């Protein structure tokens, strides 16, 4: 039975997938390159990200009958398509285990200090295993329910830190680090919009393909706007030094909330944003991995792969990453190259092939 979701649910999934992980690491990365112009880097990244989404939707046609894998095979042939799927699988696998481990470390370091990160990783992966086995329809519906909570948390965070904001922290605008502001777009794009290629698999499950393409843009735009606001708030409240010094500046931002002498220490509100977004991101990436595996091994159902893949993902998540600092180094080096290749160069070639095939 083919799973069908609405364009609205797809837009929310795109929003959650763009924001997951990124919302915590992006302020530090953008500020490292742009200094007080870090938020400008985010605006530029959002524009570049929307251009990337434009490339992605160019790959798909308006034929509702074919899925993502059949479309790619139709474009480049079975053999090249299989190589592309294997590369996409590898990238998404690393992204998924990286996200699981980042969330586990965050909870283990900031909230549940005595709990081993391995246990948190196991719980996260087991929850996503259940969600993935229920299917993308259920994931999308759950995502729709939790979306207001995420938005409310984001709005509250931004509103409550406003009194602490110092405009001198974001000034002078575009006077220093001008080149860095533009160069910073590359790593920011790598951990946000370039990971979204796997949403194309879900895009083919949307009941209306044209509406899905529009929803892809809307989700990306909303996520870009949210990340810009969060980065602006981080720089305005913590300053450039403070944003760079903290591994999780958005969490520190939450700790700064003091309202009418009784509404304080609500940083867990910030953690909610991350829990929700990263959970759906992990679910979506594992769903993509399962669907890719199903196609590569020619299975009737993707559920054959769910349990073995989750076990492998758990073992990889707890062993493949050393520390938060090495993760940040990875994001600024290998991950950028891998993301540019899988998330930009390959889709661009596929989009060009699609345009030539049409003509």
């Amino acid at each position, binding site marked *: 039975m083919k799973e069908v979701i609405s364009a609205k649910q797809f837009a929310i999934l795109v929003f959650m997938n763009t924001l997951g992980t990124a919302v915590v690491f992006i302020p530090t990365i953008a*500020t*490292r*390159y742009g*200094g007080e112009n870090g938020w400008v880097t985010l605006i530029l990244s959002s524009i570049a990200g929307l251009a990337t989404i434009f490339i992605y939707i160019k790959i798909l046609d308006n034929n509702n009958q074919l899925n993502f894998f059949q479309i790619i095979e139709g474009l480049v042939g079975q053999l090249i398509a299989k190589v592309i799927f294997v590369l996409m699988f*590898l990238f998404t*696998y*690393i992204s998924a*285990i*990286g996200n699981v481990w980042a969330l586990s470390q965050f909870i283990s370091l900031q909230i549940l200090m005595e709990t081993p990160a*391995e246990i948190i990783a196991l719980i996260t992966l087991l929850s996503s295993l259940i969600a993935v086995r229920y299917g993308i329809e259920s994931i999308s519906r759950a995502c729709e329910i939790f979306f207001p909570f995420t938005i409310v948390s984001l709005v509250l965070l931004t509103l409550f830190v406003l009194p602490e904001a110092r405009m001198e922290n974001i000034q002078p605008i575009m006077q220093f*680090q001008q*080149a*860095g502001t533009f*160069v*910073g777009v*590359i*790593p920011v794009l790598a951990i946000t919009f370039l990971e979204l290629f796997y949403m194309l698999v879900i895009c083919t499950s949307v009941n209306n393909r044209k509406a899905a393409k529009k929803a892809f843009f809307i989700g990306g735009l909303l996520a870009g706007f949210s990340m810009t606001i969060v980065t602006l708030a981080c720089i305005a409240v913590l300053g*450039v030094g403070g944003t*760079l010094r903290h591994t999780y500046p958005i969490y520190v931002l939450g700790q700064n909330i003091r309202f009418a002498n009784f509404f304080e220490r609500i940083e867990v509100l910030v953690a909610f944003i991350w829990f929700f977004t990263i959970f759906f991101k992990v679910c979506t990436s594992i769903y993509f991995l399962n669907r890719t595996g199903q196609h590569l*091994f020619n*299975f*009737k*159902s993707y*559920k*054959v*792969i769910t*349990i*073995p*893949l989750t*076990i*492998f993902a*758990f*073992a*990889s998540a*707890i*062993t*493949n*990453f050393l520390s938060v600092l090495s993760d940040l180094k*990875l994001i*600024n*080096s*290998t991950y*950028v*190259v*891998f993301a540019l290749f899988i998330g930009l160069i390959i889709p661009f070639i596929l989009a060009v092939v699609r345009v030539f095939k049409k003509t």
Partner: protein
Amino acid sequence: MLFVYDVKRYRGQERKFFIGGVILGAIYVTLALNEELDLNFVDLIQQVLKPIVDPLESWLIKYQL
């Protein structure tokens, strides 16, 4: 329970893949938890992409604060 349900549900190649995958996964997890296996996908990708990554990384560092 889920494992038993899945073993009963799948047939032929799918069942073989499922059981094989779970056994391999279990071995991987056991070795990983005991720190006896050094199967690091991230390191592997880093080694493969090293010739491209190194120049890009040194170029990016020039623009960092």
